[in-house]
């Protein structure tokens, strides 16, 4: 709860390796990954397609439990469905049989949040995201970007202390994307939650990630952990520092 240098890391990864499949079809996705994310800090994960970024978030959220190495979230071995972790999946993970409203409210319903609070929170978040008018539609009746925003709304409604996001803005137009980044930033500034953001946008990584993890091609190895302390400041984008940082990350990705 005390900002950047909070005692104790929120996420601590130590020598994490992970394989998919078994027998001859065995594929290594992660290779001895180690890094930490401080409590209340933000972290961007960037790397080529297939480098294991989504896999990493699956591990943090407890969806993948078979790996070697150590992963601690909030000081404990990650439990499945930790109450205060929220995950935004790359494919949004919407349930086709629930209307927009119910999809957005699903996390709160599962956590048995009182209906009055639930109603209020969902209403305000749907309005904020421009989804209010479509609250009674099914996911199949929405555009790609609208679906993605429900996935975001669903996670934010949980008011998590650890927010894991897998390319959450990939289907959004530039303006909506910037609005969403701002929204995220406001939440972070207000509640000082810990954020892990997987992104393909170098600018987004630098704008939002106080720590930038650059991964290599499969199997994903940590190429470098870049510290980027000025991330999250409104005015950062227009500075020379921002530009230098972008050049550096681009070089790391090009290897």
């Amino acid at each position, binding site marked *: 709860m005390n900002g950047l240098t909070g005692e104790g890391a929120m996420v601590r990864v130590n020598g994490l390796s992970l394989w998919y499949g078994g027998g001859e079809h065995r594929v290594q996705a992660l290779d001895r990954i180690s890094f930490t994310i401080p409590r209340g800090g933000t972290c961007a994960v960037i790397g080529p397609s297939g480098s294991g970024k989504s896999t990493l978030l699956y591990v943090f959220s407890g969806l993948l439990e078979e790996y070697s190495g150590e992963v601690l979230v909030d000081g404990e071995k990650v439990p499945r469905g930790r109450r205060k972790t929220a995950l935004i999946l790359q494919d949004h993970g919407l349930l086709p*049989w*629930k209307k927009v409203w119910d999809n957005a409210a699903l996390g709160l319903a599962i956590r048995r949040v009182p209906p009055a609070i639930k109603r209020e929170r969902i209403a305000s978040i749907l309005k904020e995201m421009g989804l209010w008018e479509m609250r009674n539609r099914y996911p199949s009746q929405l555009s790609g970007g609208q679906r993605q925003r429900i996935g975001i709304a*669903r996670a934010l409604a949980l008011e998590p202390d650890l927010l894991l996001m897998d390319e959450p803005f990939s289907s959004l137009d530039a303006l909506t994307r910037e609005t969403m980044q701002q929204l995220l930033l406001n939440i972070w500034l207000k509640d000082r939650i810990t954020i892990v953001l997987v992104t393909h946008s170098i600018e987004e990584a630098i704008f939002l990630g106080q720590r930038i993890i650059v991964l290599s091609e499969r199997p994903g190895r940590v190429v470098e952990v870049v510290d980027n302390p000025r991330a999250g400041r409104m005015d950062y984008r227009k500075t020379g520092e921002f530009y230098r940082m972008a050049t550096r990350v681009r070089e790391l990705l090009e290897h």
Partner: protein
Amino acid sequence: MTRHIGIINNKITKTLLSVLALLLFWQALSALLQLPALPGPVPSFKAFFLEMTGSLGFHFYVSAYRVLISLAISLVLAVPLGMVLGREEKIDQFVAPMIYLLYPIPKVVFLPVLLALLGLKDLPKVALITLVVFFQILVTTRDAAKNINRDLINSVVSLGAGRRDIYRHVVWPAAVPEVLTSLRIASGTAIAVLFISETVASQEGLGYYLLDAWSRMSYENMFAGIIAMGILGFVIYIILDIMEKRACPWK
């Protein structure tokens, strides 16, 4: 609105045409075979309407009641069990062999046991139907629950869902279409099984009526009973159709 009516009319027209085609086929077959055991539609329907004003209506009512009760019991028992078997592999490995050993046994052979346990009234009849359709709903629900996309489960687990939430928010809604399919199958089976179940210690129900007419070799009446069974099946089909529209609005 007018368009809506247009669609309905069209559907009704199609249904009527369909029934008409069936009747023509029946007429042709009966004319071709010239068998007393296959009277044409005209005498059969004559008998049907005559009997409907008599006792057939009552038999229809009794059978409809038994079929619906059996379907309801089977549904309530088989759907939860099927969902659990589909999701919990450890339990399934234990229970599945029992299912596949018991399901193919013709349940009539348990008649002495059923009679001993349940007496001679309605219960053994309902139990016999239930024994047959229970398995059909169970296997379908189980397979549906097994085939659910891993990603959907992950999605609600990431929201902190426990076992119960997964069943409620994913497994059940995902299985609903297949449960409806199984009900379509089961309702037909239930009616067909009447012929066995209602012939025991009974003087009521379409099964009894049919066997009675058959034993009298009163084939017109037998076909009146067949028509009644067809109609009963069709009514249940329409109910299921309406339920499907209600239950799966996201389609």
